[in-house]
């Protein structure tokens, strides 16, 4: 990918011509144009992304606005969290619209309009890597529809058959006479045309824009510090609130002593938040946030510490381990795994555990709200603006038509952005302030200790019986986890009630084992849990890909060769979407490209992991594999030297630059829990509080070499936002085993002594 350069917007036409001529594409982005003093930067997205980047224009369908100058503004119904939806969703429309990419702009679709117009913007929640999976046909169709209407408008203008009108780069041409009209010229008429039949959309072989390397439309805004995140919203007369929830889970606010702080500079009010937000607590309102925050720090508060005041992480682990000894709901029962294991001469058994994790998005939770008698406005970066609108309507009693969610840039999502306590806090405080806007902002400490939800801990016991050839004859898995966001389903031949995220991946093992049994316990604890980038795949792929590695070593086989044999032996029905051959090809590409099998210095090893993100019910696949090359110093310090990622290219990737940024970034996300991060509980509360004790991966720890390789497959992949996350830990830990002979069965690494001599 070293030659992976992208299209500069102004160079797109040139590059298209070059590619059309069959030459290799290597286009270098030109330097950004220097701005004259005082000149407005002509950027394609408004710094306030809920507002259009330029005024005016004519709407040709709800998704496309065409300016008199033939510029195109695309409305995007997914939230930009860094995955590039402002760009990739615009690309999907422009692929069909035949417009000039250098004049394409984007703006958020409006949740309020969607309420007023019968859900015109469809599903606005962003998550499960689904922006392209759910949006591609919709966006292509919207672009094709607008293009057809423009064509019909031009045909009407010239009084010619529509078939004689061609579209390209925002220009309509009457082919017999070479007369031309611009999109801007015919847009007002096109807007009045209704199609009797929707035009067909392009197939991947016809794509010209999709699949090109395109720089994200919001790059300049973000580099210049101009992008407006929720935390950056400023309104006339706005005041600020700092909030604090009870320090223990299950705790409540007893009493507070406002007199102690009411004369501090700038302090306006204190409010009890009973029943509001994730867990109630208190809000202090002041004229600046710093004054609100320091006043809250100084406020004497009496808490009722609640029923969990003596509980901590050891209790949670003890409860889960005890449950591992109890039979659980049986999701998979093939053959007779238990009796095979009882009579087997060789059995491998291991217990694996994962810890709770926080999202810790770089932008701390915040929300700005203004509530008057008949209208509510909120400003925040949110993964689900339509859901936020409903929450505000419920809290204020206002009809949804009177609620406006101004979706801002969002400083990271990662699954944190669905249900938001900060939103509820802001609306309740704003309502009490009677029309005065207020910004609620959490401290990082509040975000680490009292977030809306954590990634749940999971414990699992795995057993396998090995036959004389070293291959498993039976596998038995029992897992215990805290269920999140509902997610219960009836599964398997006994229709057992199991949690889908806890079962994920174990329901269709890719490895051919004749006797299989999987039991899944869901244990509700007092810790609030929910989605977190890759969710159930994160623990389960760690368990399975580590355990298979254990089996390979027990059998004395190379871990990739061993997997290849087991995949080859698996029934075709063990793979969704006829993917067995794709799994084998992915594995082979990983071995070849990573230099698997080479001689390595002492203390250095390579580890492998593979998965396809299958879910229950099936919603598509994206096969990924990682090879990690890791060195372990004699002091026990681990360095991840190189990561090779093999990824499912499917029919097409919309913007490979966005895809590769997602893939590389997930290495850092997942190395956090693998190396250092862990949320622990003591006395009913959380021990960690900020980045010094919940440490993030930084530049120095990030592997110096990351290589991305693709496997072309015959499917639309399920996504790219989280698929690498589950593979990182098992690949690194398997590499550590190869380097040191030490098997790591729990995160994070800092709990394990890896010194050697």
């Amino acid at each position, binding site marked *: 990918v*070293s030659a992976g350069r992208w299209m500069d917007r102004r160079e797109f036409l040139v590059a298209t011509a070059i590619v059309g001529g069959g030459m290799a594409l290597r286009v270098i982005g030109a330097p950004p144009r220097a701005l004259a003093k005082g000149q407005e930067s002509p950027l394609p997205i408004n710094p306030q992304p809920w507002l259009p980047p330029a005024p005016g224009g004519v709407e040709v369908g709800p998704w496309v606005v065409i300016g008199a100058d033939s510029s195109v503004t695309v409305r995007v119904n997914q939230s930009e969290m860094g995955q590039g939806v402002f760009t990739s969703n615009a690309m999907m429309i422009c692929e069909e619209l035949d417009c000039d990419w250098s004049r394409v702009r984007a703006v958020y679709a409006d949740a309020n309009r969607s309420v007023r117009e019968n859900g015109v913007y469809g599903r606005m929640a962003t998550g499960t890597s689904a922006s392209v999976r759910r949006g591609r046909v919709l966006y292509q169709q919207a672009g094709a529809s607008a293009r057809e209407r423009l064509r019909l408008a031009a045909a009407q203008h010239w009084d010619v058959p529509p078939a004689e009108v061609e579209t390209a780069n925002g220009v309509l041409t009457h082919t017999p006479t070479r007369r031309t009209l611009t999109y801007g010229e015919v847009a007002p008429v096109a807007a009045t045309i209704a199609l009797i039949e929707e035009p067909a959309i392009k197939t991947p072989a016809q794509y010209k824009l999709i699949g090109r390397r395109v720089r994200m439309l919001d790059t300049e805004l973000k580099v210049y510090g101009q992008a407006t995140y929720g935390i950056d919203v400023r309104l006339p007369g706005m005041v600020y609130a700092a909030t604090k929830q009870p320090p223990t889970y299950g705790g409540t606010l007893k009493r507070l002593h406002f007199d102690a702080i009411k004369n501090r500079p700038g302090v306006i009010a204190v409010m009890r938040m009973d029943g509001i937000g994730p867990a109630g607590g208190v809000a202090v309102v002041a004229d600046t946030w710093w004054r609100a925050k320091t006043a809250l720090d100084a406020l004497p508060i009496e808490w009722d510490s609640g029923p969990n005041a003596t509980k901590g992480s050891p209790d949670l682990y003890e409860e889960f381990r005890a449950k591992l000894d109890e039979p659980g709901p049986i999701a998979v029962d093939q053959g007779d795994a238990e009796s095979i294991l009882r009579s087997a001469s060789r059995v491998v058994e291991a217990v694996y555990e994962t810890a709770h994790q926080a999202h810790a998005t770089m932008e701390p939770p915040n929300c700005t709200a203004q509530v008057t008698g008949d209208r509510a406005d909120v400003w925040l970066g949110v993964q689900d603006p339509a859901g936020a609108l409903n929450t505000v309507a419920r809290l204020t009693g206002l009809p949804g038509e009177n609620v406006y969610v101004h979706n801002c840039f969002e400083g990271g999502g990662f699954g944190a952005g669905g249900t938001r306590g900060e939103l509820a806090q802001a609306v309740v405080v704003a309502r009490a302030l009677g029309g005065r806007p207020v910004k609620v902002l959490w401290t990082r400490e509040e975000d680490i200790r009292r977030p809306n939800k954590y990634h749940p801990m999971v414990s699992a016991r795995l057993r396998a019986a090995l036959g004389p050839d070293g291959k498993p004859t039976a596998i038995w898995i029992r897992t215990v986890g805290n269920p999140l966001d509902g997610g219960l389903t009836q599964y398997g031949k006994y229709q057992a009630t199991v949690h889908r995220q806890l079962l994920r991946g174990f329901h269709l093992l890719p490895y051919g084992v004749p006797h299989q049994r999987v039991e899944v316990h869901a244990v509700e604890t007092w810790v609030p849990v929910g989605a977190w980038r890759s969710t159930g795949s994160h623990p389960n792929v760690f368990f399975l890909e580590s355990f298979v590695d254990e089996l390979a070593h027990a059998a004395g086989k190379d871990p990739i060769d061993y997997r290849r044999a087991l995949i080859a032996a698996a029934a075709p029905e063990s793979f969704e979407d006829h993917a067995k051959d794709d799994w084998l090809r992915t594995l082979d590409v990983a071995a070849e490209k990573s230099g698997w099998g080479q001689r390595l210095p002492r203390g250095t090893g390579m580890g492998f992991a593979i998965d396809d993100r299958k879910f229950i019910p099936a919603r598509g696949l994206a096969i990924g594999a990682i090879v990690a090359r890791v060195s372990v110093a004699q002091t026990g310090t681990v360095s991840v030297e190189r990561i090779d990622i093999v990824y499912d290219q499917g029919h097409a990737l919309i913007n490979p630059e966005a895809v590769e940024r997602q893939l*590389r970034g997930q290495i850092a*996300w997942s190395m956090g829990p693998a190396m250092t991060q862990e949320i622990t509980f003591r006395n009913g509360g959380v021990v960690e509080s900020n980045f010094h004790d919940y440490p993030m991966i930084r530049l120095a720890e990030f592997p110096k070499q990351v290589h991305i390789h693709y496997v072309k497959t015959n499917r639309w992949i399920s996504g790219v936002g989280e698929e690498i996350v589950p593979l990182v830990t098992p690949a690194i830990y398997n590499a550590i085993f190869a380097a040191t002979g030490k098997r790591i069965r729990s995160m994070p690494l800092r709990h394990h002594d890896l010194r050697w001599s």
Partner: protein
Amino acid sequence: VITLKVNGKSYDLDVEADTPLLWVLRDTIGLTGTKYGCGVSECGACTVHVDGQGQRSCAISVGAVAGAEITTIEGLSEDKTRPVLVAWIQEGVPQCGYCQPGLVMAATALLSQTPNPTDADIDDGITNICRCGTYAEIRRAIQRALALLKGRDPDQGGRQ
């Protein structure tokens, strides 16, 4: 009243002297490009230049920098031609983008203090946190900025 000099402009401010510079920049002056990430000098999202040195503005009281020349992301380069900015855009570093102004300020400070940094200098000098994990792009952008500063073609060699 505290007088603060930010991006070449003077501000007379009615704030407590122990207020962190970050909050004065963001909430009192309205320069929101400088971000709050941790408040304890860990993440670097609030990095600004104080008399040319990279500093974490969440951990400096406004009273301590009265009279100093403070530069924020908004004032780094009026015409946006500064090599670090250009390199950051050409490499397309940002994902969610929240930490990027702090990274740009940290990288600018590093390259002005250490004109010929080694890989280790860069690892030691850029300790900002990026939760999206844009670290590969950050390394490339710093190398590109170095090439631009030295008048080399940034697309010839030096890329991993």
